[in-house]
């Protein structure tokens, strides 16, 4: 008599097929997506604290903007060091923000103030600390616009071994490959020779002309 074992039943359950349906994506779905005014109006009490913190950050940023204006008119070394201190403090606070959305928003702010070198330094600093892969992707995509600074490639090369997510690694590889430097290509070739490398990364490297 035919009899199935637990292993076979387990496989059958895992392989339950997706059933066909006629449902199609309806453009009207977008109408259910909340408008920007919804976000403003529907903030719940539990989020009040978060709103307060965001407000404080905004006040801080506005103060920072005003100070930057003063800085442009008066280049006193004391004002300069105070401003640098304030910027560092701001970056530190942003790195500590609990919500990845807040940290994503901070990337835009950071990349809109300061010199290119300062921006790159701050973005690289945040990259080292960032636990969320999506935020890390956004950081690398922003860094990609500063590849005219050799520092970006050098620091991404040294950061590469500690990145655990293959998608983020592939994005870094793309930035390094786009820079087309000898050092970058050498590192990517060396990487390709590592046996334990994630197959997806290995496969991606084979598609790049090294």
């Amino acid at each position: 008599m035919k009899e199935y074992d637990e292993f076979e039943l387990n496989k059958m359950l895992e392989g339950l097929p997706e059933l066909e349906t006629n449902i199609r994506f309806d453009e009207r779905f977008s109408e259910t997506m909340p408008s920007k005014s919804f976000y403003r109006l529907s903030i719940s009490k539990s989020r009040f604290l978060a709103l307060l913190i965001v407000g404080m950050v905004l006040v801080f940023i506005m103060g920072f903007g005003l100070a930057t204006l003063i800085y442009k008119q008066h280049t006193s070394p004391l004002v300069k060091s105070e401003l640098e201190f304030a910027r560092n403090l701001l970056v530190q606070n942003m790195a500590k923000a609990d919500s990845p959305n807040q940290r994503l928003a901070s990337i835009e702010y950071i990349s809109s103030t300061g010199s290119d070198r300062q921006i790159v330094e701050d973005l690289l600093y945040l990259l080292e600390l960032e636990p969320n892969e999506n935020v890390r992707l956004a950081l690398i995509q922003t860094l990609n616009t500063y590849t005219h600074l050799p520092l970006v490639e050098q620091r991404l090369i040294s950061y590469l071994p500690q990145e655990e997510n293959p998608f983020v690694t592939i994005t870094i590889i793309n930035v390094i490959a786009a820079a087309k430097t000898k050092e970058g290509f050498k590192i990517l070739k060396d990487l390709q020779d590592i046996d334990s490398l994630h197959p997806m990364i290995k496969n991606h490297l084979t598609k790049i002309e090294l």
Partner: protein
Amino acid sequence: MSDELLMLRLVAKDLRAAKLLFDRHHKSVFSFYRYMGVGTEDAEDLTQEVFERVFQSSHSFNTSKAFKPWLYQIMRNRLIDFRRKKKVDLLDVNCIQIKEHESDRYNEQDFKRLQKVLLALPEHERELILLVKYQQIKYAEVAEILGISEGAVKARIHRLIKKITKHFNQILQDEGI
């Protein structure tokens, strides 16, 4: 692009992200309801409602967490609401037909037998097995959703597989195969 990243784009009202998420998951949501014993039309309505809710609540999604368990919470809540309003009749197993291209993996008769076994399970057991085996949500995440320990999830799944195997073989025996 990961589901979590798509959710971030959804917050920014990116309609393409909404469509991508829908295309990726609507069949699995629909199938889950069907396997849970909901009729085709109701399962389609529920699936639409789930995605409307996903789009409405995108701002409350925590991108540091996985998308699937969050989606499942919405699916579950919709199912609970649905059951409050309407008593769900058990499916006629002949209603769910196996697709032709699935036939190399599945024998049509086995598929029907498996559905019969699933539908005979108490609802909470059917839900658990579909969560872990069909939706492929991690044990730890299932434990969080159901408010039990990860060890308890593993133990229950182990017992359930045994039970399903026993019922399945019983059906075979009854059919004289």
